[in-house]
Structure formats: C-alpha cells, structure tokens
C-alpha cells in the first residue's frame, strides 16, 4: 500500500529527486492519521536537507492535483506533490 510523492522546481533540485513511492505503513499508526503532516514528518527523517526543504513557510502541497493543507488525509494510490509557490503566466 503506497502513495506517490512528486517534487518540483527548486524543491526537486535541492533534494535531487523528482518522484518516489512511500509505504502507507510508514506513515500511519493506530494513534495518528495518515495525513500530509505525517508524510512530511516521515520524509523529514531522511535528513536535514529534507527537513529544511519541507518546512519552508510557503511550501505548497497538492493531493491528487488539488492544493490542500497539512490536515488532508492520504490514501493508497494517492499522489502527493510538494513544490514552491507557482510562477507561471
């Protein structure tokens, strides 16, 4: 049971990865829900560069292509993307 994590732009560059799979079992427990905050906590354990990158104040989270906040719950097969504020147009 896993979710797909995608990284874009400066975040992708800083962490050297654009896509990875995360096992839901790593994120959820009986005590806490598998939400975006929990995903960030698990990824932050990978190292200081991950911790710093994911705790930027303006970081945007998109769950299945829609912007969400850290309380959004993730489920098997979901796609969760992290990226800096958008600069299109």
């Amino acid at each position, binding site marked *: 049971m896993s979710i797909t994590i995608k990284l874009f732009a400066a975040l*992708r560059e800083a962490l050297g990865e654009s896509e990875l799979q995360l096992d839901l079992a790593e994120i959820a427990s009986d005590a806490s829900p598998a939400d975006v905050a929990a995903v960030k906590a698990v990824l932050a354990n990978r190292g200081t560069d991950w911790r710093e990158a994911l705790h930027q104040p303006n970081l945007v989270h*998109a769950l299945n*292509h829609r912007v969400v906040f850290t309380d959004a719950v993730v489920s098997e097969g979901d796609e969760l993307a992290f990226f800096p504020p*958008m600069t*299109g147009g």
Partner: protein
Amino acid sequence: MAAEYAKLIGDQPGAAVATFTGYVRGHAEGAAVTALELEHYPEMAQKVLMTLGETAAERFKLTRWRIVHRHGSLAVLDSIVWVGAVAEHRGEAIAACEFMMDTLKTDAPFWKREEGVAGDKWVAQRDTDTRRRERWQ
C-alpha cells in the same frame, strides 16, 4: 497567435472578443535574461487551466474561451501564455482575461527558471501577483 485567435472565435465571432499575451522578458531586476526554462506539473496544470476557463465562462458569461500555456525551453521574446474570451459585452470579455491571467499566475503549476549572464535562478512569486489574485475572491 493568429491561429489561437481563429480557434477562439470559431465560425461565429461573438460581439466582444478580448485576448492577452505574455512574452519572455529580456531582463529581470536589472540583469539580462538569455533564456527561460518553464517546469510544469502536467496533469495538475491541465486540470487547473480547464477549471479556470470553465469558472471564467460561468462568472463572466463567456460564450467561448481559450487558454494556452507553453512549457520547456523558451527564448527571450517568445510567447509564454495566451488567454482569450468571447462575450456579449466588452466589460465581460476584458474582465475575464484579467481574471484568467491573475488566477493562473498563482494557481497554475508552472515554475520559471531564468538563465542569465550572472547565472540561473528560480523566479519567486511576487506580492503583487498574490494581491491581484485576491482581488477576485
């Protein structure tokens, strides 16, 4: 641009047609820009822009609309984005273009990387873009 305009108006042009085009600037904050790289999140960009057009159509009573956003490597003076709206009256057509541009600047998943003489850097979102977006809430 002519091809996009033709697709926008189709066989029967409405009474009022407005468009906006954004081009790659040759300079940013005093430094010369030589090229622009536009990264994007394809599946989300498609959804966001489609929803944006539909929202604009409903809010401004458009009969037709079109949004084109390029990605990848662009040169200075290349076009980046083009929006078009057809309505019965000029107020709605023009406002719809402004709304679509103000919204996609902050909501569409594209990221600009400027390549210049002094090096490469990611463009940062501007406060003015956030404020312009908020005007439409």
